[in-house]
């Protein structure tokens, strides 16, 4: 406590404050998804069988692949911070570029998956969805809602990383002043974190 209050109220960059602010923001993301996890939990309790059936129709391989992609991208972001702080700016940029590429791969994969579902008539609001046994249309509804919201976050996260890459290039984010990169990284990790739960909850429950 004492150490904290030692910081003077001056306008210069407050590293701790930025980070605290970012964490607080991440909580809001966690709770935003939390609402959907709440729905997931309760509906799963209501329709265990339907969720089981629904889970069977999802492709574990694609889901697993995406898990690997995201975790790897998480690693490269973490590495990029180390690289930047050690002065390896080019390596840092490479790692970030790789991360964004991973995000792209993830989204391509997602599109393939979703279009396969659409192909089977599993389109929200469609007649086919309406005719599914009760719990199943809920399952797919949640699937679309949660992976969809997650997908949006992937896109946002990747954009933020691109923006940080630009800042690094402009020399605005450096090995001495890297909190922006760190915060962007934190955001990216949250995206990963959510997926770490989505994967087993949707793909591995059959």
């Amino acid at each position, binding site marked *: 406590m004492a150490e904290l209050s030692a910081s003077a109220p001056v306008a210069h960059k407050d590293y701790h404050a930025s980070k*605290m602010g970012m964490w607080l923001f991440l909580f809001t993301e966690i709770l935003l998804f939390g609402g959907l996890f709440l729905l997931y939990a309760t509906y799963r*309790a*209501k329709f265990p069988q339907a969720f089981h059936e629904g889970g069977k129709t999802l492709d574990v391989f694609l889901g697993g692949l995406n898990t690997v992609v995201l975790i790897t991208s998480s690693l490269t972001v973490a590495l990029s911070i180390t690289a930047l*702080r050690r002065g390896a700016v080019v390596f840092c940029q490479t790692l970030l570029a790789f991360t964004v590429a991973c995000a792209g791969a993830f989204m391509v994969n997602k599109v393939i998956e979703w279009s396969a579902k659409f192909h089977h008539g599993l389109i929200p609001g469609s007649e086919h969805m309406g005719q599914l046994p009760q719990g199943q249309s809920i399952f797919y509804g949640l699937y679309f809602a949660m992976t969809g919201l997650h997908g949006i976050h992937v896109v946002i996260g990747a954009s933020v990383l691109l923006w940080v890459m630009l800042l690094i290039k402009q020399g605005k984010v450096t090995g001495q002043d890297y909190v922006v990169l760190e915060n962007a990284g934190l955001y990216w*990790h949250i995206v990963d974190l959510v997926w*770490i739960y989505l994967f087993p909850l949707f793909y591995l*429950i059959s």
Partner: protein
Amino acid sequence: MTQTQTTQLEGHGHDHEHAPLGYRFLTLIWVGLMLLTVATVAVAKVDLGYMNVIVALGVASLKASLVIFFFMHLKYENWIIKGMVLTAFVILAIAIGLTFVDVGYRY
């Protein structure tokens, strides 16, 4: 959460001047995450009844902790941030838990 002595190579401290985590260390964490992913997919193929969910969520939480503590640096943050993270998760757990006081007795 106050354990300050760690085993990895890099130094650490309470302020932001602590040295960055090493490439090797981070990669090791990644290897761990990969192994856990393989494990969870493998276990899912075995029918353990209701234990399946618990195992899957347990493994996921293990993975999540790795990400939070190392990739996200939480381990090296001061206790205030740690406390905040804990609060956020506790509130989420309460929200879900208390909802089950209703649905648990209805469905």
